[in-house]
């Protein structure tokens, strides 16, 4: 994403001078990926939305100290997101997925049909159950690469590993995920 990186560079400079709109543009560009990353680790859409805002507020506060040396802004945001996720887990002490019956409803204004809402929640719970069966580094590499759509280089920077290591990790993680999907399918049958 070289064009995106150049654009980020300009926006970051402006934001560092206090331009809130430039930071808003950065938010609009990167918030969907951050949200997807957070939501694929959480069982509640509202938490994911709150934490997305928190990630960007924290990033705003850290902007004066932020320098682009070696770490692109997106990788920096994901590092912040990962820390916030860890804090959230610690605060709530809740790493397990909940049963769909325990989940609270959300966003009636957007999803108007209750049956659709429950259907989505059940589907999300199933996804979480599969992902949570994977090792943490497998979860991370798969969510960063395929759900947040980061490049191997960006994933390597977020996870503090080499690009080669990420490639091997992804290769193994995909195989394990496929196996877990089989296991869960058989179990549910």
């Amino acid at each position, binding site marked *: 994403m070289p064009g995106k990186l150049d654009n980020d560079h300009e926006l970051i400079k402006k934001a560092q001078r206090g331009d809130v709109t430039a930071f808003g543009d950065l*938010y609009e560009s990167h918030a969907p990926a951050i949200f997807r990353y957070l939501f694929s680790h959480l069982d509640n859409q509202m938490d994911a939305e709150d934490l997305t805002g928190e990630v960007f507020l924290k990033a705003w506060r850290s902007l004066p100290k932020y320098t682009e040396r070696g770490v692109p802004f997106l990788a920096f945001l994901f590092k912040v997101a990962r820390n916030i996720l860890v804090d959230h887990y610690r605060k709530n002490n809740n790493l397990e997925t909940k049963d769909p019956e325990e989940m609270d409803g959300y966003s009636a204004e957007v999803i108007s049909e209750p049956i659709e809402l429950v259907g989505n929640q059940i589907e999300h719970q199933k996804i979480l159950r599969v992902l949570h069966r994977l090792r943490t580094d497998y979860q991370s590499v798969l969510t960063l690469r395929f759900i947040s759509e980061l490049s191997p280089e960006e994933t390597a920077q977020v996870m503090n590993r080499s690009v080669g290591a990420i490639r091997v990790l992804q290769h193994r993680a995909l195989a394990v995920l496929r196996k877990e999907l089989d296991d869960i399918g058989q179990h549910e049958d």
Partner: protein
Amino acid sequence: MKIERQIEQIINTYSPAISSGDETLESILAMYPQLANELRPRLEAVIFLQQVRLSVATRPGFIHDSRKYLEAQIKSMPPLGYWRNLLRRSSPQRLVFNILAPVIVLLLLALVINNTVLTARLSIPGDPLFSTKLVIEDVQLALTFNQVDKTDLQIQQSRERTLEFIELVMEGDYQYLPNAAARMETEIDASLHALNNVSKNEPASQIAMVTELRDILSNELFMLDVLKSTSPTTAQPGINLAIQVAQSGILALR
């Protein structure tokens, strides 16, 4: 090429096509029959993750609404790098600050050095700044090139040592007396040597300075005699040593 790399390239190349429905799992496997066994489970996992990506997408309007909320929150916060921006801004006040800041720093520095020197000058053996006092005296001596002035300075320093000794006795710091007496002896010897060097060129000055040194040593002797009678026995050896030093000095002056 390693198999992981090949498979990653295939996944990167065809993921968007699978997502858009332009390619299917089977059509991709047909292109790479030699990798089918490795590729199939991974492509199936990728297809699952693509579905997950769609299911965890943001709700419509969320990004737009939350951006407004985020911008409002940021605007209500204190400005980014407020103090840094203030210090960088060029203005008449900033110009005055730029000129005044180094002047104030220099004045403060001069004040601190002056206070240190004054405190050091008043120090006696045992005080934390006494070694500073000796260094200052050495520097003064090194920077004085005229022989008469140098000798005069040496005599003043001998006077300092004798006064310090008396002060030590009066304050009861007897443990420092032997060292102070030794230092006094060294200083008086140095003064006597300096007086010898002056004698050839400046006889008048020499006589005046000899008189001055003799007065200093006589006063010291008188004071030490008085103090000896009122001091405890622990102070006696140190005082006796100082008396001998002063008497030797007077004898040498004769």
